[in-house]
């Protein structure tokens, strides 16, 4: 019977941009990075406690790199030899305590050892999402025959969007949509147009949290149930997604534009040369109507 259970894999991508979190600690000391990770750990534990076959993975998305907090490369699943740190004194389910300890240790390593280059407050989510998709792809190949696996990704975003990653982000979204992987988004600070599009295209939930201190409550209420159970709950309504394109020349949102047929760049005004691919366009001239010569009727 155990082999007929569905495996639910939840991958949590946490935005740990140290510059944003540092500023946040000065603005509102109630919500710090450690409290945020506590809330994420609560969600992870609850997810693993729902069914025995549920799986979890946590990725920390830093400014220039992303690291897997759990499962760790150095930790082999099921390796019980001599792991004194894993057995907790209060009789907690061992898998949960191992996960918590690993996450705490790894995030300490990541935050202390990773050096911050530049002072951008933007996070590169596209890279972390791409790694999450590769991980999901590997896990789905490793399940036994006959077991189904359903995966979803939850993104906890703090800092602003990085506009340079638009194309990579869209590639990742389409890859996720093709593999039927939901992308949910829990946004702490500023609205993110990219994540709104991601949630709309893949069918996930987008939520901007009104009160940051209650992060754990929102995570458990909205993002713990999986896609089948969501149809029976009344969840926050979908956000209005702006799908208008931005023109390449001014970055304004336009409703009617001109698209180059070669490189698909969008312009708001007609110009004879495409600035991206430098093709000269053929301009349609209005057809000249020649005046018809009237034939003189020969009167017979």
């Amino acid at each position, binding site marked *: 019977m155990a082999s007929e259970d569905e495996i639910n894999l939840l991958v949590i991508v946490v935005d740990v941009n140290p510059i944003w979190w540092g500023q946040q600690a000065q603005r509102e000391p109630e919500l710090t990075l450690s409290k945020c990770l506590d809330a994420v750990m609560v969600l992870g534990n609850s997810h693993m406690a729902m069914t025995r076959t549920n799986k979890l993975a946590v990725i920390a998305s830093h400014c220039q790199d992303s690291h897997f907090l759990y499962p760790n490369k150095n930790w082999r699943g099921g390796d019980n030899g001599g792991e004194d740190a894993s057995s907790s004194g209060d009789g907690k389910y061992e898998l949960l305590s191992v996960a918590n300890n690993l996450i705490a240790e790894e995030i300490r390593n990541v935050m202390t050892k990773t050096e911050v280059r530049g002072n951008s407050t933007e996070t590169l989510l596209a890279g972390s999402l791409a790694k999450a998709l590769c991980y999901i792809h590997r896990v789905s190949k490793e399940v036994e025959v006959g077991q189904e696996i359903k995966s979803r990704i939850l993104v906890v975003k703090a800092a602003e969007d990085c506009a340079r990653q638009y194309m990579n982000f*869209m*590639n990742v979204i389409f890859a996720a949509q093709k593999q039927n992987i939901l992308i949910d988004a829990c946004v702490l600070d500023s609205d993110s147009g990219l994540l709104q599009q991601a949630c709309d295209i893949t069918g996930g939930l987008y939520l901007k949290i009104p009160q940051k201190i209650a992060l754990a409550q929102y995570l458990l209420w909205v993002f713990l149930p999986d896609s089948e159970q969501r149809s029976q709950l009344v969840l926050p309504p979908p956000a209005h997604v702006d*799908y208008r394109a931005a023109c390449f020349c001014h970055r304004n949102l336009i409703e009617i534009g001109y698209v180059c047929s070669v490189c*698909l760049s969008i312009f708001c005004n*007609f110009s004879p040369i495409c600035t991206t691919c430098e093709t000269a366009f*053929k301009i349609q001239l209005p057809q000249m109507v020649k005046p018809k010569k009237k034939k003189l009727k020969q009167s017979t």
Partner: protein
Amino acid sequence: MDEEPERAKRWEGGYERTWEVLKEDESGSLKATVEDILFQSKRKRVIENHGQVRLGMMRHLYVLIDCSRSMEDQDLKPNRLASTLKLMEAFVDEYFDQNPISQVGIITTKNKRAEKLTDLAGNPKKHIAALKKAVDTLCVGEPSLYNSLNLAIQTLKHMPGHTSREILIILSSLTTCDPASIYELIKTLKSLKVRVSVIGLSAEVRVCTVLTRETGGSYHVILDESHFRELLMLHVKPPPASSSSECSLIRMGFPQHTIASLTDQGAKPSFSMSHLDNSSGPGLSLEGYFCPQCHAKYTELPVECKVCGLTLVLAPHLARSFHHLFPLQAFTESSVEELQEDRFCQACQGELKDKIIFTCPSCRSVFCVECDLFIHDSLHCCPCCIHSQSTS
């Protein structure tokens, strides 16, 4: 008469000792060689020429399906027609996934005549519904290449010059019944810059060879059903644009999705223009996309507005084609023994168990075989290169 170099036919070549490809190892098992062969066939797809070739993104493709008596043959299960229609449904799905702003039309030919199954349209649902219904058609008579090509040309010749005009013929019969010389029609096709490709289900037919050679298409004959599917999927990728196709700026509209609830003041339910033809589907609805020029409502995009003629698309539709324009370069192969550091794939964090690993040329990260296939097939971007882009 013929300028083409005569290829050696298969029966003219020497003996191929196909059994020598398989080699047994010490225990007598063939597993290693079978895995090797599968791996090579997977890699074949990835190693392609990712040159800076201009691709035809907006495509108008007509698929001509032969419905003559030879389609009732049962060499493809359950019969050729059912198998073809099922593969066509998968093709239509993949096609619109890779080319969201293109259009497809389906024409069938039987009993020496040709008729349109569906018109050129950008919505996959209509085509799939028509294909599902077509399973019951009777296969009689002979196909007519001339009539079906003529029918396709009549629509394709009005298409604007910057789009690519293509025809894909699935021909199973070895004969065709034409009212006039097909070589004249081939000249017309060439002058209209239409590219014709053929997938033969029975055997190679000379007329098709000439047709595809003159118009610049490809001709293949299937070996079995999986080969059929492979050949069909070859036509999903956008073909290189011919040098004679014009480039122009196309005027497009990007409508907003309006969702109004009943409690909103002034929310008026309205009809969608796409439902004017058929009465199926919901009539009045509150939400939809309004054309920015004439405010006609549509429920699904991409579509060409029936009232004002503006092409309506969403920004993600254009974004779907970006990976064709900026393709990911192939990764370099190397052996796993050369790796000094920990043997972990940097994308999926799995151990590198295979003998071969792949390295991205720009960021020098190491990936395993599965991740390499996944990255090149679906992701189209290297996970580690995205990070290094930020510092530049």
